[in-house]
């Protein structure tokens, strides 16, 4: 029975993490594309800032994935 709960909880953690990461990333990249269209000469700067933003946003959802692995395998 606890095996079943392990699988369920790992799946929920991973699913919610995926939702959170994609929602956050979507907002950042949308704004970046809009700003690049407005001002093409600052595209390089915007691209670097976008990567930093994506790296920051994905930090905690990735931790949720690691916790899902720990639930499954520890």
């Amino acid at each position: 029975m606890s095996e079943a709960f392990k699988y369920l909880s790992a799946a929920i953690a991973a699913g919610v993490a995926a939702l959170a990461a994609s929602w956050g990333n979507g907002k950042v990249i949308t704004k970046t594309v809009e700003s690049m269209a407005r001002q093409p000469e600052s595209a390089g700067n915007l691209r670097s800032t976008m990567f930093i933003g994506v790296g920051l946003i994905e930090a905690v959802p990735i931790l949720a994935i690691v916790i899902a692995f720990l639930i499954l395998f520890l």
Partner: protein
Amino acid sequence: MGNVFEFIQHKKGGHEVLEKSFVFKFLGLSFDLTGIIGSTLMALVVLFVCIWLSRKVEMKPNKRQNVIEYLLDFTDGIVKDNVSDKDAQKHLSLYAFVLFLFIWFMNMLGLFMEVKVGDWTVVKSPTADPVTTMSFAMMTLLLSFTFGMQKFGVGGYWRNYASPVGFLFPINIIEEITNFLTLSLRLYGNIYAGEVLLTLIGNRLAVSFGLPTMILAAPLAMIWQAFSVFIGSIQAYVFVTLSMVYIGRKVTKE
């Protein structure tokens, strides 16, 4: 000498622990052999790459010199964008360059090879271990303290915690701890999740139904490895950028 070494087994009631590191105790301290082997190997690789790229330096740059100059310009750009103090920029440019190369090579090692001896993983990405990434984040934290105290003096440094308003002092302290934790765990989580997924595709998916899943798993593993190369590069860049941001904030006078 018999009882000086001691092996620490991760026994978890018969469960399999993914990517168990080989930990041994020497004179009462635990050492992680996997981390030692991986990071020493990658330090040597960085050393040899830099030496190889910088032979025959001329005024008109040849191809190898172009590569190392591009890398140096890249990390110098990171430092200049985020640290506004010219004196600190001079000191930090080498740190940013070495940190970027070191972390990048360590992230790539786990995609390139994984050596298992018995139950233990002996060669994998050192950054897939939270203790390694915490060491790097601790380096950045201590460097930020050093640069802040060099610029403002010890008293002025503590007074900066209470700026702009005095009651923000505990919040600024908590922010230090949070920055340290997220900096280290971000790198660890990204690299560890990538490696675990790669292992699962190879060991579980490919053998579950015989030949059809093997044919399915091969391009999936390749796609995932390509994505992990991308993620590893991004995470190295984000780690160095955030380190520079944290150090830069300590040396700016608001």
